[in-house]
């Protein structure tokens, strides 16, 4: 899409008009939601089955669903870190707790995917309320580490003392039942729908994905979301403006917990399983890596980061020789991104396309840079 507009810009004066239109359109809520729908429609196909493209990615449908769920997780996490500036190193607590709550509810009370997912979400919110009372009194690193401590506490709690309920490291199995009693989630379509979306489970997850994107866009565009941002930029000033900072942090924390809980519930439905490893610190670490790698505070960033992470974990992992090094490569690129380019992959892309709009300046800048490099190498 952006490639077309770039080509247009070379045509002449009319291009200025088209750039402005594009700039206006791309920031509207409707455009964002529509592109998320388009993304869900095409993602699995492009990743796993489309000619040429899928040969490059070597993906498969199951991984596409996992990526969508983790994208929801990353979006929820980003709402707290990217928007509000609170780095939680323990977001696995919401993911794992929601997963367990969903599984336990399905096994002991009532098994219906939609209800189960909502129960997971509510459990995460309940945990959010309790942990916020402790966490929101702390700042920056203290907040991060104590969040990690709470998550680790829950991990070890679920692993041994609560083994009767959680089945410890064996985990819980959830039988799959039809959605609302009629829609079979495993049902595979034929024809165009089958090619694009494959089965009902993908549609089920996809709808939640679009809903989360819509909700987060709404928050970002609203005055309410702007208050989150102002807390990130300067908490003291926000308080001086007469706003109750604690209340807004609490709201952001709960919203984040709810979205992450949704992802946890979906994960339980998707894998038909809930296990203790979803509470482990590595889950919290993974989500930090994904979000920061993709680009903090943006909508596309966390999704791209999740994709890159799972591309490495699911696909590169299988490569001969190189597969052994996937996590090393990933963690090194994460470190490099934080070190040198805090805007992440999405930031690089937008900067690059912005530079492309003015090709002449890009050319002179590149020349300048090359000119800078050469004599320095000779003189010193």
């Amino acid at each position: 899409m952006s490639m077309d507009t770039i080509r247009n810009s070379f045509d002449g004066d009319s291009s200025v008009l088209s750039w402005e239109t594009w700039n206006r359109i791309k920031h509207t809520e409707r455009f964002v939601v529509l592109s998320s729908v388009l993304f869900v429609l095409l993602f699995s196909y492009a990743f796993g089955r489309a000619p040429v493209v899928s040969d490059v990615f070597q993906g498969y449908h199951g991984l596409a669903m996992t990526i969508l769920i983790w994208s929801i997780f990353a979006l929820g996490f980003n709402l707290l870190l990217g928007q509000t500036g609170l780095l939680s190193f323990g977001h696995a607590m919401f993911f794992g707790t929601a997963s367990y709550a969903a599984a336990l509810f399905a096994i002991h009370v009532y098994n219906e995917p939609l209800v189960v997912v909502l129960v997971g979400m509510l459990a995460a919110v309940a945990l959010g309320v309790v942990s916020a009372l402790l966490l929101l009194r702390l700042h920056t690193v203290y907040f991060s580490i104590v969040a990690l401590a709470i998550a680790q506490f829950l991990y070890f709690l679920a692993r041994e003392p609560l083994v009767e309920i959680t089945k410890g490291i064996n985990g819980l199995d959830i039988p799959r039942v039809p959605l609302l009693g009629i829609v079979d989630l495993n049902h595979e379509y034929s024809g165009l729908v089958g090619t694009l979306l494959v089965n009902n489970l993908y549609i089920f997850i996809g709808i939640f994905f679009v809903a989360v994107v819509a909700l987060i866009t709404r928050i970002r565009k609203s005055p309410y979301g702007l208050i989150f941002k102002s807390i990130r930029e300067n908490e003291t000033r926000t308080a001086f403006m007469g706003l109750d900072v604690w209340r807004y942090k609490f709201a952001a924390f709960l919203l984040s917990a709810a979205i992450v809980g949704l992802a946890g519930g979906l994960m339980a439905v998707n894998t038909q399983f809930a296990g203790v490893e979803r509470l482990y610190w590595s889950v919290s670490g993974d989500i930090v890596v994904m979000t920061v790698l993709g680009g903090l505070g943006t909508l596309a960033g966390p999704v791209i980061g999740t994709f890159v992470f799972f591309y490495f974990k699911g696909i590169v992992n299988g490569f001969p020789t190189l597969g052994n090094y996937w996590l090393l490569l990933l963690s090194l690129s994460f470190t490099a991104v934080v070190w040198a380019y805090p805007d992440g992959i999405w930031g690089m892309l937008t900067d690059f396309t912005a530079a492309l709009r003015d090709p002449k300046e890009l050319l002179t800048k590149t020349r300048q840079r090359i000119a800078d490099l050469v004599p320095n190498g000779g003189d010193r």
Partner: protein
Amino acid sequence: MSIDGIVGFLFIALSVASLYLLVAVGLSIVFGSLKYVNMAHGVLYLAGAYIGLLIASSNQYGGLLGEAGQVGLGWGFIPALVLTPVVIFVLGIVMERFIAKPFYERDLLDQLLVTFGILIAAQELVAIVFGRTGTIYPRPEWLTGAISLPVIGTPPGMSAASTIRVLVVVLTLLLILAIFAFFKYSDYGLAVRAGTEDSEMAQMLGIRVGRPFLLIFAVGAAYAGLAGVLGGSLFNVTSGIGMEIIIPSLVIVIMGGVGSLRGTVIGALLAGLFFATATELVPSMTRASIYLLAIVVLTLRPNGIYPSTEIGQ
């Protein structure tokens, strides 16, 4: 509980506290004086454990070393205990210059993220080179069983305290006293304290704070390296131990109150006591206990036990 039981219990508590303390002390000083949060401190513990292993014994490893057969010097436990901190001291200097220094002026969260990335990368590197299965330290004869002194044999009441635990506790006690003395009596310690109070002012008065900070960073590193050898011989050694030790250590530093060495010591002792009590009463809660303790303490005192900003107190 018999006297033997009590002594055994105390030494479990103290040895666990000692290990945490050796790692947390470096973290606490660097966090308190340089305002630098260093998750990569776990790398030093990890490196200490593996370098000690290479010095002490010669083992068959998995991973890239799988083909190489027996790898290691096999000099025994004492050389490992002495040489490893020296190696890690040098590693600490390198880490301060190339990783920590560029980040002193940056946001705390950036520091946390970068050092987290480095820790994960280092753990993965170790896993690739040494394999993912655990290794055990060879324990020399004199380290197993109860302590036995040359003349009097096993002191009364000490039969339940294993030698390795006694060694860990005594070493830690000496090293912690050394660091307190360093802060209180040496010129370098004074410079670190001045630099902590107001780095710019200290520099204007002609005190070079860079060197003392580097030294204290490297000393903290050497302590963590030593903890790696000791921890490796108490528990087993895997590529994941860096993260496993750094989480409780960070929690202890925050629980004790950042910048307060005394708080860190108290925090570590409490954690060890809690650990040993849980082992005795509710074994399933053993590993969750320290986090429960931290949650309780920080609920009651959000700024930690000693909410002090002065280092060396």
